């Protein structure tokens, strides 16, 4: 600290530079864990070491040459001391810095509040206290000149000591013996040698953060880096942190964020970002301490922008980054999240506690990110091990730190092995000697011959051969002894060897086990990591969206699905020239469907702005390959798959499933969705996979291959690939980085399960969930598996006692379900509307929104082009309102404006006689090339092409329409632009017999070109924009759909609808009846006409594609002709949309509608002239009660219907308007003032009296939920 207390001197700049650089690098290092940052540090150390070495050499040289005089000896000692000091300080520096870093990391890890300011100071402090090293080095560089001049050793030593201790305090004028040498100068020199300072200054002058070299098309890395150093220098130089922050904010954030954009998160840009992040975080800390909210908010605003930049880039740039960098980004993300959460903490004071929820989320997210980081780190280590082909224990041991070895290698084996190695080397050394001796004794002559020295000795007679021999025999004895001892040693060694071998064997086994474990671990952890990372990204993504929604600079109403046109519909407003499209969003069809299966909502989808601008097409296959961790060979053909699905794959899959489930378990733990701690034993059981199978998930236009798993409470689908690849899907898409690979559904949310056909195999299953979504699975190719899964789901589903509208009917056949639910009867009795009934029939016959080849089919209801002008519209409405007799209905004269389509004929039979004739000719002329059965029509009434044709103006269908036409729309003349034109085609062309889709009766927006797609201009020169409607619709699609719906629900159509049902779903679908009514299509479209298992493999793909593109006929639901609806009732009018099925509107001609209820809890505060009272009908099985809630109390009444039966006129005695009579129940009044638990009187807020009184009756009046009290309490009474 003492160094920092001093004002930082200008002359100290060089040192400062280096130090700031170090600090910057460390700070960066802390945030961005790249190894490059270490380099600087090590370079610094290396310089120190180099200098020390030089000094040592110099001393040695001086000593060798004897040039040292006594007077200089002390100098030498000093030098030596310095060298040792250098080493010491180096070591200290290292440990100190590492220590600090460790602390920092710990602090991050244990989530203590980060005080960057202090930490930063600490690092700086450590560094500064060791800065003299540099000075010594510098001084040493000018040592030679000094050598001779050293006069008085004592004084010098003192000075040097002084220098060591407080170099910086005396910065400008250090005196080192005789000559005045400025250490700063040398320090500068050193820095100058590196050329850093100059560049630093020149960079500063250029006033541009990062210069772009246009010639090289490259960013200057060094200046950028130096700039970060500068920012830290600023930080240290500014006496006032406020100035520093404001300075930073002024340009640096802006520049850096620009840099981030342009540079696409280059490592230096990233570093800058992180540095500035840290700096600004100091600022936040500072301002929060000072409670300067305004300033804090300013900083926050800048930070927010920066974060968003980083985040956005992080989201979209990941593909270009290597693993390491991704990791860095994760760390940045952690900080972002941490920051956001802390920010929220700061912001939340009194009122904003509603944000507490979000904070929870943020903290959770931060947790997860941190976990994912740790996991990825772990993963990396393991992959490194894995990648090293290490089979030997040694490598493993050396790779791991010794402290960790015992965890997976027994000490025993380790020691044994080491011992064995030692002995072995020992033995090899000794055995050489022994063998040499033995050879010498046995083959003396040969040796003599070989050994020239011996030869000479013998020849010169210096050695007698005999004597030598005796000597040698003597020696031989000794050798024998030796040999014996060696033998002993050998045998001993052999036993040891055996032992060692045994040990080794065991060790090897152990290693193998370890490796297998490790592989397993690696596999699991990569999958886990991938999953968790995706989960994290998903959460981060949603959090960001939420963050954008709630506040900040992204509070865009569009994000909350806001669409609004505040003027009544005018055709001109939607003209091509006038219509303004939303710049950010496209309208797409929301997959949500209502209980009547219509899809009325549009959703907004963000245009791919980011992607277009910032993401280059990446063809890095490696990256993708890495992602394809779940790939189990799904790109193989179906046939191959079929072969091994039951045996090998299933086994694998089960293993795989267990792994994934463990992940799922952890994921739930993270999400806090555990079912509760008390049943921990059960929880393990819950996550156990009961059933798993590879399957296909059909969603919109894409087919995902994956794995379906069932646990006790959940249904889980895991995709195999990041990229879907199935030749039957219209669009093959890549998952976004934040898309989950795993989707989980709760079993207790299942409403219904229906069987489906997929490519004429009965292997599909559609599961409907609460909340209006469904899941379409294809379990090809085994039909028995579908049954198995279906039964399993049904049995599991029944175990939930909790109420849900799941039908209790156990049948798995759609036809039986239809019968059991009594839909036909209900329709005939008028309880279901025609639209609803047709949708139900569609559903049960296997039509689905997920499969375009089996999209819902609806009839044309009018003959469109027969219009007589707009003025007749009122007549049209009247027509629908009129109650007609049966004769009227079937007479032809009733319709003044449009002809109703004859619903008893298929579209093919509707046109001219010549057209029908051509169809008949086709039917009668045999096809010589194939043995296909005869058919009337070469095309179908519903196929993917037709659906895409109709819905081309809405996403995602326009995308799909482009996809089937190789990326652009079809020719303008062939698009869907006029309803009349399409109808004419469908009744006049011989290749077109199309019917409609439910959207014609439920979604007006699909007729408008809201996305302003450019469909081109027709040959007649007219631009294709909105769909041209028949004249009677007044150009208003809302009116058109309204009328369409009206006509569909009218009595005329109700009575003739059964004929159409016969054609499409019923008896006239196939067989002789079909032939009679000209209703035979190509045989491939029918159920049970094709056995794909018998088709040769090479034809399979072709036939499947043909089936998919041709369209499929619905399953046959009725074998007998459909019954007629019941006779026209004067009173029972058709279905009611009140939220209650039991309410029926009894309606007489020319009279007001009245409500009657027999079992309801619906608020119905009407008819009464009470001031500020609400009236509730109370659900009750036997008595008819009503509650009147006024300002002071709740009173109960019984009521009776004075109308005796629906057929009679109400007796109008007292009150002609009311067919009810009332009696007050006495003694049951409930006053509003309740005493709470602590005896506190709850007071009513008078505000609620002007509204309806917030009251709710539950469980037949047993429980009352009351609101309207001060303080927001809700009372259960």
């Amino acid at each position, binding site marked *: 600290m003492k160094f920092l207390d001093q004002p930082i001197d200008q002359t100290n700049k060089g040192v400062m530079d280096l130090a700031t650089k170090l600090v910057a690098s460390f700070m960066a290092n802390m945030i961005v864990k790249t190894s490059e940052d270490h380099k600087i540090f090590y370079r610094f150390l290396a310089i120190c070491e180099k200098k020390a070495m030089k000094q040592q050499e110099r001393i040695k040289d001086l000593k060798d040459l004897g040039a040292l005089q006594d007077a200089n000896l002390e100098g030498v000692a000093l030098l030596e001391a310095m060298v040792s000091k250098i080493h010491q300080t180096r070591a200290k520096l290292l440990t100190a810095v590492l220590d600090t870093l460790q602390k920092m990391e710990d602090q991050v890890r244990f989530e203590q509040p980060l005080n960057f300011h202090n930490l930063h100071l600490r690092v700086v402090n450590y560094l500064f206290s060791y800065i003299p090293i540099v000075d010594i080095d510098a001084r040493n560089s000018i040592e030679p000149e000094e050598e001779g001049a050293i006069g008085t050793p004592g004084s010098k030593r003192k000075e040097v000591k002084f220098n060591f201790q407080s170099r910086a305090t005396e910065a400008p004028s250090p005196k080192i013996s005789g000559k005045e040498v400025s250490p700063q100068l040398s320090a500068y020199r050193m820095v100058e040698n590196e050329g850093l300072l100059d560049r630093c200054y020149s960079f500063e002058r250029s006033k541009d953060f990062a210069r772009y070299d246009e010639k090289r098309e490259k960013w200057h890395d060094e200046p950028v880096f130096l700039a970060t150093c500068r920012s830290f220098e600023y930080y240290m130089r500014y006496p006032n942190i406020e100035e520093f922050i404001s300075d930073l904010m002024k340009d640096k954030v802006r520049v850096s964020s620009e840099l981030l954009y342009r540079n696409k998160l280059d490592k230096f840009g990233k570093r800058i970002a992180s540095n500035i992040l840290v700096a600004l975080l100091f600022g936040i800390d500072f301002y929060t301490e000072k409670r300067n909210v305004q300033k804090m908010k300013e900083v926050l605003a800048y930070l927010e922008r920066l974060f968003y930049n980083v985040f956005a880039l992080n989201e979209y740039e990941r593909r270009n980054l290597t693993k390491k960098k991704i990791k860095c980004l994760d760390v940045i993300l952690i900080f972002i999240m941490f920051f956001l959460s802390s920010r929220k903490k700061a912001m939340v004071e009194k009122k904003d506690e*509603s*944000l507490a*929820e979000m904070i929870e989320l943020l903290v959770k997210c931060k947790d997860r990110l941190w976990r994912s980081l740790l996991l990825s780190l772990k993963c990396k280590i393991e992959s490194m091990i894995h990648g090293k082909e290490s089979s030997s224990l040694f490598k493993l041991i050396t790779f791991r730190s010794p402290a960790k070895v015992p965890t997976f290698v027994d000490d025993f084996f380790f020691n044994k092995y080491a011992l064995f190695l030692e002995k072995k080397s020992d033995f090899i050394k000794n055995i050489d000697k022994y063998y040499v001796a033995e050879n010498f004794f046995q083959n003396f002559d040969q040796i003599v011959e070989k050994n020239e020295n011996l030869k000479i000795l013998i020849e010169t007679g210096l050695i007698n051969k005999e004597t030598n021999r005796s000597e040698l025999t003597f020696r031989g004895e000794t050798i024998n002894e030796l040999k014996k001892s060696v033998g002993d040693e050998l045998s001993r060694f052999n036993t040891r060897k055996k032992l060692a071998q045994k040990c080794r064997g065991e060790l090897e086994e152990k290693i193998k086990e370890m490796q297998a474990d490790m592989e397993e671990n690696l596999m699991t952890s990569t999958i886990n990591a991938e999953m968790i990372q995706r989960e994290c990204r998903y959460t981060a993504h949603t959090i960001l969206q939420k963050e954008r929604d709630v506040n900040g600079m992204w509070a865009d109403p569009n994000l909350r*699905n806001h*669409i*609004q046109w505040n*003027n009544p*519909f005018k055709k001109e407003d939607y003209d091509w020239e006038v219509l303004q499209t939303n710049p950010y969003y496209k309208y797409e069809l929301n997959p*949500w469907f209502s209980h009547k299966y219509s899809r*009325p*909502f549009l*959703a907004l989808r963000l245009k791919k702005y980011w992607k277009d601008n910032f993401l280059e097409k990446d063809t890095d296959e490696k990256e993708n390959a890495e992602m394809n961790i779940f790939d189990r060979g799904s790109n193989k053909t179906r046939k191959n798959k079929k072969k091994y699905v039951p045996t090998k794959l299933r086994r694998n899959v089960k293993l795989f499933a267990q792994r994934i489930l463990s992940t799922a378990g952890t994921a739930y733990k993270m999400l806090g969705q555990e079912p509760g701690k008390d049943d921990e034993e059960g929880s393990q059981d819950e996550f156990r996979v009961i059933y798993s199978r590879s399957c296909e998930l059909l969603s919109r236009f894409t087919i995902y291959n994956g794995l379906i798993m069932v646990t006790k409470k959940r249904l889980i689908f895991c995709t195999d690939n990041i990229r879907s690849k199935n030749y039957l899907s219209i669009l093959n898409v890549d998952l976004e980085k934040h898309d989950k690979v795993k989707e989980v559904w709760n079993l207790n949310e299942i409403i219904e399960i229906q069987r489906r056909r997929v490519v004429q195999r009965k292997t599909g299953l559609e599961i409907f*969930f*609460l*909340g209006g979504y469904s899941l379409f699975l294809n379990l090809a190719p085994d039909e028995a598996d579908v049954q198995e899964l279906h039964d399993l789901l049904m049995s599991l589903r029944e175990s939930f006692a909790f109420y849900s509208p799941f039908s209790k009917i156990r049948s798995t056949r759609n036809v039986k379900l239809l019968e059991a639910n009594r839909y036909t009867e209900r329709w005939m009795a*008028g309880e279901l*509307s025609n639209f609803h009934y047709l949708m139900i029939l569609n559903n049960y016959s296997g039509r689905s929104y997920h499969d375009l080849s089996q999209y819902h089919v609806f009839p044309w209801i009018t003959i469109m082009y027969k219009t007589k002008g707009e003025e007749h519209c009122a007549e049209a*409405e009247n027509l*629908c309102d009129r109650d007609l007799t049966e004769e009227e209905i079937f007479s032809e004269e009733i319709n003044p404006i449009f002809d109703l389509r004859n619903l008893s004929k298929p579209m093919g039979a509707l046109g001219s006689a010549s057209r029908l004739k051509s169809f008949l000719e086709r039917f009668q002329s045999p096809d010589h090339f194939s043995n296909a059965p005869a058919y009337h029509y070469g095309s179908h009434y519903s196929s993917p092409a037709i659906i895409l044709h109709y819905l081309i103006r809405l996403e995602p269908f326009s995308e799909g329409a482009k996809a089937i036409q190789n990326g652009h729309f079809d020719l303008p003349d062939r698009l869907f632009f006029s309803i009349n034109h399409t109808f004419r085609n469908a009744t006049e062309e011989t290749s077109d017999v199309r019917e409609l889709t439910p959207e014609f009766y*439920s979604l007006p*927006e699909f007729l408008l070109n809201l996305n302003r797609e450019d469909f081109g201009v027709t040959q007649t020169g007219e631009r294709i924009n909105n769909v041209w409607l028949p004249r009677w619709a007044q150009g208003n699609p*809302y009116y058109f759909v*309204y009328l*369409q*719906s*009206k006509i569909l629900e*009218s009595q005329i159509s109700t009575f003739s609808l059964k004929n159409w049902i016969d054609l499409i779903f019923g008896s006239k679908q196939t067989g002789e009846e079909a032939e009679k009514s000209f209703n035979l299509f190509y045989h491939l479209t029918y159920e049970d006409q094709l056995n794909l298992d018998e088709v040769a493999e090479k034809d399979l793909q072709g036939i499947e594609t043909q089936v998919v593109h041709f369209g499929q006929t619905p399953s046959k639901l009725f074998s007998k002709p459909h019954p007629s609806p019941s006779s026209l009732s004067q009173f029972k*009018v*058709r279905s009611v*949309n*009140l*939220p209650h099925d039991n309410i029926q*509107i009894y309606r007489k001609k020319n009279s007001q509608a009245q*409500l009657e209820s027999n079992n309801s809890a619906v*608020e119905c*505060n*009407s*008819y*009464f*002239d*009470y001031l500020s009272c609400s009236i509730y009908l109370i659900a009750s099985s036997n008595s008819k009660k009503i509650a009147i809630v006024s300002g002071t109390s709740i009173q109960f009444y019984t009521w009776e219907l004075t109308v005796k039966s629906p057929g009679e006129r109400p007796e109008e005695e007292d009150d002609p308007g009311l067919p009810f009579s009332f009696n007050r129940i006495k003694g*049951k009044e*409930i006053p509003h003032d309740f*005493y*709470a638990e602590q005896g506190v009187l709850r007071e009513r*807020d008078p505000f*609620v009296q002007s*509204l309806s009184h917030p*009251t709710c009756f*539950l469980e037949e009046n047993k429980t009352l*939920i009351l*609101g*309207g009290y001060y*303080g*927001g*309490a*809700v*009372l*259960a*009474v």
Partner: protein
Amino acid sequence: LERKVFKEYQQHKETVTVIKADRQENFCVTGSQEGQCIVWTVKEGDLTKKFSLTDFESAILDIFLLEESYLMAVGSAEGKVLVVNMYTREVMRTLHHPQGFSVNKLCLSLQPFGSLLFYSEMDGSLYSYSVNGQMLKHKKVKGKKVICMQVGIDSKNQDFVVSSS
């Protein structure tokens, strides 16, 4: 029969203005004066918090539950209407009163196409919008104040059952 408070739920900060429950008593939705809207799940008369909506800044005046389709529409004093999926919590649509007046009563219907009807006391008008944001009709209610609305459908057309006091 004496009524006693057996449970008190303290989640809202300010006075609860609206309480609605669906017919099957699976859900209960409460809205408060400061604009918080909480969806509760009901089990045997006991409420547990499912989620809350914090999109509003002023008092919630009416909530409409379209039970069979699991939708709810919430109207507030700031003139904002939200259509929310009660299961997935997804905000299906946001609409505003064209003049920013309060939305006092509202109704949602999905037949034949989705439409939303709301009444504002401040200008005494009924507005009907397509669920996708297109205004369909606007009508002033003369001299009377609407206190309850229901949308009913018979076989032929869509009737607004409006009663006033």
